[in-house]
């Protein structure tokens, strides 16, 4: 039976009674919101949420909402990779999403989340960077993937990841024309971003409370979790892992996560494709 917590609009903690309720349910293998230990909330993706962006997607994981917008510009390649385009993932932590975010540059959580999402996409080599070259060694396409949490009900990291994934799947690259020596983007002519679809990363975050591992923690669970483990796989490879939180994990916990993620990856991939491409 679903139970909605008293979490006041400004609160960042749970009362002792609420904590005990969570613990009691977990010890019986259940969660307060009615989910099983290894059950995700509903994931909904709305591609092209921002028309002006070259690619965008609103991701809703339960009530958690993150929007990703991709903007493209022209820049110089990294000196050691003259034949590859580049991308940067950034997360802004605006107070819109949660009372724990303040105005100003992203806090450490925003930075960590952005870097984990970046890692998953980069290690999977999901974006064909070699197709983003304009002039070898001189000009390449730069992709800015910007993530904006809009409503934090737990597990912003996964919502952000799927928002970025959804946005990449619909991103279009503008054509380039040379105005004398300088390349200029011609936004009226676009072609789809080239992606390694077989290497599409799938990421999930798990939390450990007492001795139980749960999938996709909601806000209250995140508040009392001893530690979290985020993992991404692409094809047959693990492409990113991030353990966060001060509590320890057993090796068995980690293996449980690997196996669960592996068994779910295809279903999630299908879900993503269906939501983006219909």
């Amino acid at each position, binding site marked *: *039976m679903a*139970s909605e*917590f008293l979490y006041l609009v400004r609160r960042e903690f749970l009362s002792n*009674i609420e904590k005990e*309720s969570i613990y009691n349910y977990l010890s019986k293998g259940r969660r307060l919101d009615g989910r099983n230990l290894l059950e995700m909330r509903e994931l909904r993706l709305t591609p092209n949420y921002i028309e002006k962006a070259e690619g965008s997607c609103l991701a809703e994981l339960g009530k958690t909402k993150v929007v990703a917008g991709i903007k493209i510009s022209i820049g110089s390649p990294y000196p050691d990779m003259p034949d590859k385009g580049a991308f940067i993932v950034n997360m802004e932590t605006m107070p819109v999403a949660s009372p724990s975010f303040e105005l100003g540059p992203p806090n450490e959580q925003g930075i960590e989340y952005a870097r984990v999402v970046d890692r998953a996409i980069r290690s999977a080599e999901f974006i064909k960077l070699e197709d983003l070259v304009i002039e070898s060694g001189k000009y390449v396409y730069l992709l800015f993937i910007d993530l904006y949490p809009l409503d934090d009900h737990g597990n912003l990291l996964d919502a952000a990841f799927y928002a970025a994934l959804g946005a990449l799947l619909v991103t279009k690259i503008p054509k380039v024309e040379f105005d004398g020596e300088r390349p200029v983007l011609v936004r009226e002519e676009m072609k789809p971003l080239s992606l390694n679809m077989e290497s599409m990363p799938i990421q999930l975050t798990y939390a450990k409370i007492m001795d139980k591992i749960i999938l996709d923690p909601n806000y209250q669970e995140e508040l009392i979790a001893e530690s979290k483990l985020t993992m991404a796989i692409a094809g047959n490879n693990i492409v990113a892992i991030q353990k966060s939180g001060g509590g320890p994990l057993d090796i068995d916990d980690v293996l449980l996560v690997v196996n669960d993620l592996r068994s779910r990856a295809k279903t999630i991939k299908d879900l993503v494709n269906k939501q983006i491409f219909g």
Partner: protein
Amino acid sequence: MPGDIIAKDSNYTVRGAAIIRHDGNIVATRVGLLRIKGREINVIPLTGRYIAQKGDSIIGIVVDYSLVYWLLEINYVWKARLDASDYLKRPFDPSKERITKYLRVGDVVYAKIAHTERGMPPIVTCRDSGYGKLEGGRLISISPAKIPRVIGVKGSMLEAIKRITKAEIKVGANGIIWVRAERPEIEELVEYAIKKIEKESHLSGLTKRIQNELIRGMHKIQRGEWQ
């Protein structure tokens, strides 16, 4: 709605926190329901935020403390103050005792608003019987505007729930309800009923329907079939 002119003359008495007199007119300041009874105009705010009034029973969570009092989060603009001497019903000497011996951060308290004043934190009291620390059970949160419906006319709805489920229930005017029953399934049933009241509060015959749901639910629990 804010800005709506309700009456063009001032020969009315005005009640409620969502209404003012301006320039000879009576104007609303919040989204609310208009109630006119004879020469009395009242606007009941719908925007759901709890506004502390003296005499309200509330449920609060200890979030901080000083040497001689605790501060409770009560879903209001300010945190409420609960003095140790009030809670313990005796003088409290901080040099002899530590306040955290009695209530710690995270503890849940059922208290009554003793005093409020604009621009200042309210003071709560636990002196009356039935008030004090709450343990076990679970907390349910609903819109404060629906709390009267959960209590019912002359307390009839609340009495019905208690009677059928034999659960202990304390209702806070600030939208927080505490339930403790013999079994967690019964607590779930009570929560289900309260959420149903919240959703269907505008439909008639609600008390009867809730009673039926509760009786059916109790039977299911006894047979081990409750979901």
